[in-house]
């Protein structure tokens, strides 16, 4: 009986989590534009998506930013994790603390404090400010992912390398980096999805010249339901799911 109640409860939660997504997917294949009733299967909304250059450009910009910011954030984040794991110096705790605070900070606070910084520095909002915003968002997450990977390392390997005459850079490039690659890749995929999914930080750090996909969707959605937005959302969910599966696989291998 208890077991039965447990499964019912679990199914209800999954229903709650997935029903809206299922309904959206349903609409994206429904020939009828407005009503819930099934008017036959169609792919025309997906076709419309392909011809909507506005959306296409926004999607391309989103991907560009996601790839670039994930890559930059991974480099900075891995070095940060390496430093935190490898070196003992004054202020180490403070850095750990500030990374944690940056991770927990509400997006809107990160967004507007960067906006204030960019305005004060006299930057024009657009590609570069958006990129910096996304890198800022991702670095703490990468650092945490890679750091937890470092903790599983056998330190004696590093000590042996040092005894054999390796310098700090060689230790990093020959030992730490190869061992960190799964963490690095997982961090990259994590950053990629974080960047692709971000709405709030993009909202504040980009300008009218560089509109990314979530913001484009945002302005479309405020005007009501659009079948091609449904189709686009389904495409984005599929991309996310693939990224999640990939990162899970990579994380598991190391375990």
């Amino acid at each position, binding site marked *: 009986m208890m077991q039965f109640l447990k499964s019912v409860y679990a199914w209800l939660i999954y229903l709650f989590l997935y029903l809206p997504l299922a309904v959206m997917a349903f609409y994206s294949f429904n020939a009828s534009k407005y009503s819930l009733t099934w008017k036959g299967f169609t792919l025309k909304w997906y076709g419309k998506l392909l011809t909507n250059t506005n959306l296409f450009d926004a999607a391309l910009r989103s991907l560009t930013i996601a790839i670039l910011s994930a890559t930059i954030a991974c480099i900075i984040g891995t070095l940060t994790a390496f430093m935190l794991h490898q070196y003992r110096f004054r202020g180490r705790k403070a850095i750990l603390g500030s990374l944690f605070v940056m991770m927990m900070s509400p997006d809107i606070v990160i967004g*507007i404090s*960067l906006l*204030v910084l960019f305005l004060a520095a006299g930057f024009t909002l657009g590609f570069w400010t958006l990129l910096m915003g996304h890198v800022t968002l991702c670095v703490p997450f990468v650092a945490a992912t890679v750091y937890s990977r470092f903790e599983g390392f056998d330190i004696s390997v590093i000590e042996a390398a040092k005894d054999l005459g390796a310098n700090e850079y060689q230790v990093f490039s020959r030992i730490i980096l190869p061992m960190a690659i799964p963490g690095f890749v997982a961090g990259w995929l994590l950053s990629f999805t974080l960047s692709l999914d971000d709405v*709030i930080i993009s909202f504040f750090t980009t300008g009218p010249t560089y509109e990314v996909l979530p913001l484009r969707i945002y302005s479309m959605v405020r005007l009501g339901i659009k079948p091609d937005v449904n189709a686009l959302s389904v495409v984005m969910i599929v991309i996310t799911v693939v990224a999640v599966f990939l990162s899970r696989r990579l994380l598991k291998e190391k375990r």
Partner: protein
Amino acid sequence: MKDNHFFKNLVIWGTIGWIAIFGAIPTLMLTGVSFLKSHTSNLIKPSFNLSSYIRLADPTIGTMVIKSLFMAASAMLLCLLIGYPFAYIIARAEKRHSRRMLLLVMIPFWTNTLIRTYALVAVLKADGVLNKTLMFLGLIDTPLKIMYTQTAVFIGLIYTLLPFMILPLYAAIEKLDFRLLEASRDLGANRWKSFRKVTIPLTMPGIISGCMLVFLPALGMFYIPDILGGARTMLLGNYIRDQFLTSQDIPMGAAASVALTLIMGLMLLTYYRSLKNSGRTIRP
């Protein structure tokens, strides 16, 4: 030896510099701006004063802030009440099973929250799935008006943030040593008592981090009220955004976000306390 230190220093100072430029300095600037005065034509007047903070307590703004805090807090509580048993079920399920169940939570967790919010519209609108189902079941005659109300915003918050509660709860419950529960039962505690005295204290870090991950975004996600709520439903996030972009009262917006940061600081402090406490209670 020299290049040894070169790499080390480069990494340390590079990282510190990065955190300073994109973490510390913007925060300090924001705090600084909040003490200034706004000026017409989007300029800030460089004169120190507390007027923005005093205005936060102003009835019109104060009510909005309290309403928004209340909304976020109730969403957080409901997520906890719904999420805890669920996380417990996943954590206690067979290993193979629980991994699959967890993956199913991860997918909505990583899906763009804007898209998920928008997906909810099709469920909640007058001729949406929810109303159609309720009418089909004969529970209601006329469609409920949910869209563009505070209820819709509330549902939206819970829907988008529930995975953020479940995942840390799962992590905490999974780490729990279930032998401790058996021991407490052996020593005569009933189910409820061992839950209250053993399970809850030991999973407190998970409870608090889940609560933080729900509460803080719930205050700031301005697009949820925009898409699901009516014109008058507002969260602190909408207010902050409007101060920056519409009213162009930057000091006021800065003061509101400093307040939000202080709330976060308070929650982080509670988190650390609970981490320490649970560390102490694990030891026999």
